[in-house]
């Protein structure tokens, strides 16, 4: 099956810093989503981005489907950005099923 790898696994930053999270996938996909899981376990939709670039405030994402990767950029980090960021893909071979990466645990220190 498809492999979804995220890097780095852990990231510790000071408030105000910028960061780039990466998601690599091993096969063609129908779509790709980025989620933020807050400390209470809630999964928050950040981006639905099968290709191209999107921006939402301090966050932006780029997916290059032909090269099988996606990047999530966080600028001017705040402590509320802490949590785990997941990339999830739907392979062409699996209708609607989404496969999650292992996540990047981000800790923002004041």
């Amino acid at each position: 099956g498809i492999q979804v790898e995220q890097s780095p696994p852990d990231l510790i930053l000071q408030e105000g810093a910028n960061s780039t999270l990466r998601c690599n996938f091993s096969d063609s996909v129908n779509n790709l989503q980025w989620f933020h899981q807050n400390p209470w376990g809630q999964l928050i939709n950040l981006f639905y981005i099968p290709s191209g670039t999107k921006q939402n405030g301090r966050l932006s994402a780029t997916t290059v489907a032909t090269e099988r990767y996606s990047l999530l950029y966080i600028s001017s980090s705040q402590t509320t950005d802490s949590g785990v960021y997941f990339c999830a893909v739907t392979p062409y071979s699996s209708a609607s099923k989404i496969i999650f990466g292992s996540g990047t645990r981000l800790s923002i220190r004041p």
Partner: protein
Amino acid sequence: SAVISQKPSRDICQRGTSLTIQCQVDSQVTMMFWYRQQPGQSLTLIATANQGSEATYESGFVIDKFPISRPNLTFSTLTVSNMSPEDSSIYLCSVPPGGSYNEQFFGPGTRLTVL
């Protein structure tokens, strides 16, 4: 988008017992999914709940352990049967309200601890 609720939000159970988790969506959806997230791990798909037919289980998950019901297009239940401490996890349901291959939204999760 979709508004998804789950009950209970958390529970502490004794080994050998069963717990049924409910998932309610504010709109009709064809497919609903159940995921498990073990402590410190990523999410793993348990099964796809189809209205009017039996659920489709992923490798490593069986109906006897995780029976699923889907009585209508807005509701589903997942039962965790004969629980052991290894079943301690967050259980989440999700839906793609726009149809297959579209963006998916997740419920708030049920945090289960088995003693």
